[in-house]
């Protein structure tokens, strides 16, 4: 939820900045194509309108999660612990890679299967809807 700009402190300053931004955008030589691309890419990541029952979305998420990330985070809030984590990572990385490659391959195979099933079910749903409509029309005749 965004607070209307008129209701926030220094609303006049925000207005001034908005005018400056608009003026900048109207300048000749403004890199419009590049900025439009930035806007489009950010909007793609910002979308939250996802139906929890959306089969295609679930399949795409499965595909994204199928790759096992072997870059284990080693940062820590506790001084010194990051160093220990980096040491442990260096010691076990060969083992993780061996396991990770197999799990990733398995995950990708499952994901591919899931995506195919999801798309096939969606297609069948659409055909059933179409057939329903045709049956209704025929029954009405």
């Amino acid at each position, binding site marked *: 939820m*965004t607070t209307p700009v008129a209701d926030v402190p220094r609303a006049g300053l*925000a207005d001034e*900045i908005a005018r400056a931004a608009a003026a900048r955008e109207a300048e000749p030589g403004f890199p419009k194509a590049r900025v439009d691309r930035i*806007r489009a890419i*950010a909007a793609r*990541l*910002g979308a939250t309108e996802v139906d929890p029952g959306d089969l295609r979305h679930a399949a795409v998420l499965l595909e994204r999660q199928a790759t096992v990330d072997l870059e284990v985070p080693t940062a820590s809030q506790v001084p010194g612990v990051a160093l220990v984590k980096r040491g442990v990572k260096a010691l076990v990385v060969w083992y993780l890679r061996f396991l990770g490659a197999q799990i990733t391959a398995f995950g990708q195979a499952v994901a591919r299967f899931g995506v195919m099933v999801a798309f096939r079910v969606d297609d069948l749903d659409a055909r059933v809807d179409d057939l329903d409509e045709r049956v209704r029309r025929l029954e009405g005749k």
Partner: protein
Amino acid sequence: MTAVHTVHQFVPNFAAGDAIGTHVRHTQRALRAAGYRSDVFYDEAQAAVRKLGRHWSTFDLGSDGDGGRAWVIFQLSTGSDMTGFLLDLDLPYGVYFHNITPPSFFERWEPGASENLRRALADMRRLAPRSRFAMANSAFSERDLIDAGYAPTAVVPVLVDEADPAVTASPRVLARLERQRPDRRSSANSGYGARWLFVGRLAPNKCQHDIIAAFAAYRELYDADARLSLVGGRTSNVYFRSLELLAGELGVDGAVEFTDTIPDDEKLAHLQSADVYVSLSRHEGFNVPVIEAMRAGVPVVALASSATPGTVGDAGVLLPSSDPVLVAAAVDRVLTDAELRAELQRAAKERLDRFSLETVGRELVAVVRSAVGG
């Protein structure tokens, strides 16, 4: 009537460095200083703070519950088995609400996390009918409490750590960040290598993708040598990977640093090196890092969303949208207008006083006392 002297806290996740863990520790101090007996009971705790409390399963109604006379403050932020336990306990309780992120933010990234948030919202509604008082960390969060049926309610800001004189900025990180600044004389760019900073978990509701987009626009329009530090651990690995890909796609990957979780001295180094703090979060219950930025003297540019305007007040530039060109223009204005920066710093001092441990601790104890007595 017997005076009540015991007010315990129940907290589902007790962590060392996060806003809730810090609030719990300071709440305990404030309650004890006011004469209450007060312990902490948790469901999960990080090793660093485990000894500061006990697991809820060890709670004894006789000794801990003061024979049924004790009160409980439930720190409400996530779904937990403690909810059922608290409802079964025959003790009066109130809640402190840290806010719950709407599940929709996590739906496309981490469906498991969005399930947990739905459970948290259900727990919130279950606790409402028997709750005797409720505190919210902001006016924004208080509206959620009222909608869920809580009464009476009060706004008591979250208790935030004050500057710890024992923590000094890491010289190693400071030196590294300074080395990254371009040499003004040799730089071919007209910019000045401004350093942007955001502190907070990498999470879809905090919208680090909008910060990266605005940063890319800023480099394009104002300062090709600018750099961005995103300080904070990962909530969603898929979202994190998407941020890395986004930075690459926009051609700013070499200028964006993801630090992950870091020790306090390194965070302080990032704060001290920052030229501007940018928050484009779309959902915050309070937004503690903007207070940390103000304390470090870093000007704040933020999206006027959820609780952020109430925390920033007039000590930052609040924007109506996260549009990359608008955010870039706001950062440029702040960095090129010395008078504005000085004005923001003066206002920041007042905000820091408003959120001081002493002031907020007094408010918290007053709310507890009015409900509990003692």
